[in-house]
């Protein structure tokens, strides 16, 4: 389905994840973040979003564990930055697919 986000028509799947990363912009990220209850994306948020996009580009497996090990913030900070389902939320904001990891 297509949705107007930050003045652009963005293709989303039924769960609200971008289906075409080329449509992603920082403005799109800010608007999805505010939908997810994150009013302001701080530098710390951006570090995580950049890390996730990079990991996705390199087709690395993305999990809470790998983020804690190789990511820019600790697992505790990750949960604080993106409360209530951090990996799903952060992936949606980063414009990458919903992570399929169970850990």
């Amino acid at each position, binding site marked *: 389905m297509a949705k107007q986000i930050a003045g652009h028509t963005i293709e989303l*799947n039924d*769960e609200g994840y971008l289906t075409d990363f080329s449509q992603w912009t920082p403005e799109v990220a800010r608007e999805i973040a505010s939908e997810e209850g994150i009013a302001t994306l701080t530098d710390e948020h951006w570090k995580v979003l950049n890390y996730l996009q990079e990991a996705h580009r390199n087709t690395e497996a993305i999990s*809470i*564990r790998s983020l*804690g090990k190789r990511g820019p913030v600790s*697992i*505790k900070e990750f949960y604080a930055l993106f409360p209530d*389902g951090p990996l799903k939320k952060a992936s949606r904001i980063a414009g990458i697919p*919903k992570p399929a990891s169970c*850990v």
Partner: protein
Amino acid sequence: MSNTETLPAEIATVPSEERVKKMLLILSKATLENVYAAFILANGARMEGIKAEIFFTFFGLEAITKRKMEKLHVATVGNPAMHIPTLLGGLPGVESLATNMMKKEMEKLDIPTVSEFLDILTASGVKLWACKLAMEMFHLKREELHDELDGILTVGGFYERASGAGTHLLFI
């Protein structure tokens, strides 16, 4: 699980206040498969924004006992899913072999060791409780248990933590 999966209609229409809010897991066994089941369910709950707590009782206490937690085994005797004769499962070394094989497979799947998993659970906001009665029974002291434990509870204390709509209890 594909990345394009969608919520089935019967779930998508459930109001958010009626969804699972909190999982209280009771771990009563120390076999590797049961310990990981509890840990993965607790961690998975937090990943979905669901609160999670684990109450370690009886043999489950071994999963938070410092000198035991990395020495847990898969059950090879009395476990029909091993598909080996029970008699064979009891031979020296068989349990260790099966355990090592399982640990290797889990590492491939990015599943951490017990102590690392406990650290991840704590960092993710999972609360860890030890059962008072079981500790007394096994003569365990607080300092023998995982440092990040949230406390020692009686059964009554644990049930108090079950308050609130959307809380589910699961015995493992």
